[in-house]
């Protein structure tokens, strides 16, 4: 199967439901994981991913065929996640408490599993805009240019966000004793 989704998209535009299913199948894991990293809850992530694909299929006609499809798709997913995060702020917080409870340091869990959970927790504590840029870069493997297009921000802003996300992740992991050592007093570039 070719990586270029244009044929699939053209068939979707013609109303071919099998092509729609193929398109969703092709990107669902990446979109779902991105939503999961952003929201930290499986159910919310599934809702956000579903809404994302429904919107994408409805507005495929507005996609500019000269641009990459995946950044556009992830931009819509990012918008959905931000909306859900904003709605969550207005409600009493329940999700992050559950994530916090995942890490019970009194239990002798496998070190690697604990590390993964700590990193996930630290990710959830980042500012959403930092988290979005960081996940798009590290997990979805988008280039800086693609991220800039997806989040509609200048390249410099994207680099700054990813860099700050990294710094804050390290700071949180240090604070929780997951990683040792202290940073040099040098200015980060």
């Amino acid at each position, binding site marked *: 199967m070719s990586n270029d989704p244009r044929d699939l998209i053209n068939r979707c535009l013609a109303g071919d*439901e099998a092509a*729609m*299913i193929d398109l*969703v*199948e092709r990107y*669902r*894991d990446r979109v*779902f*994981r991105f939503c*999961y*990293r952003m929201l930290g809850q*499986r159910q919310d*992530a*599934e809702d956000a*991913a*579903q809404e994302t*694909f*429904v919107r994408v*299929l*409805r507005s495929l006609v507005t996609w500019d065929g000269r641009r990459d499809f995946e950044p556009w798709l992830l931009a819509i997913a990012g918008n959905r996640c931000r909306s859900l995060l904003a709605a969550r702020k207005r409600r009493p917080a329940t999700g992050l408490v559950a994530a916090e409870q995942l890490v019970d340091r009194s239990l002798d869990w496998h070190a*690697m*599993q604990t*590390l*993964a959970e*700590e*990193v*996930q927790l630290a990710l959830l504590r980042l500012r959403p805009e930092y988290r979005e840029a960081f996940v798009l870069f*590290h*997990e979805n*493997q988008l280039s800086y240019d693609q991220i800039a297009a997806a989040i509609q921000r200048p390249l410099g802003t994207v*680099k700054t966000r*990813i*860099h700050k996300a*990294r710094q804050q*992740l*390290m700071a949180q*992991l*240090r604070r929780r004793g*997951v*990683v*040792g*050592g*202290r*940073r*040099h007093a*040098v*200015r*980060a*570039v």
Partner: protein
Amino acid sequence: MRCEQFEQRLQRCLDRRERPSDDPAIRRHAGVCPRCRGTLAAYNRLADGLDLLELPVPDETFSQRVVRQVRVDRRSPAVGRRLAGAILAIAACLLLAWLPQFAGRDDTVPSASPRVAATGTAPPVVARMTSVPHGVQSGPAATAPTGMTADAKIGLVPWTIWPTSLSFGAWNPIDTLAGGLTPITSPLGVAVEEIRRTIPLGRVEPPSASRGDSVRRSASRDASPLA
């Protein structure tokens, strides 16, 4: 390599999605600087943690659910949109019906409705026309209908009294049309009969019949129940 250069090089590695510990220069510096060694170990641990992150997948029916949702949305437009359309239609009808009553008045134009003027309850509201209506000859004020000024104002009145407000009978008759044509002045029935006479199948009497005969014949036909 100094510690500042180490930090910069480390960030560059991370930007290229490379493991900093794979860079020989970074490893060399970390070997001689305990603090940078700690920093390198911390970043390696973060990279490990990122690699170990859970990779959840949505359930098997995810794609079908998405397409089903799209299908449902296509078949039934949102109730809200339907409701908004209905409200807009009702509002537009109400506006059309009642707009004349709320339009601004112009007291310089004489009342076009004797009945309303007599009662004095609801004098006609006046609007200024921006263009001359079709069929109305523009020009001197004498050709304008009674109650209109030379710049083509007409009385805008509530629809409930419209038929009695505009007295079209007061308009000056037109005697000639362009090109020497004569306007039809006979009643509609006579005009129709005249047109029918020009059609071979509709010709029922000798062509010498006068217009008066046609009128009488038409009147007798109208009176006959078999006509």
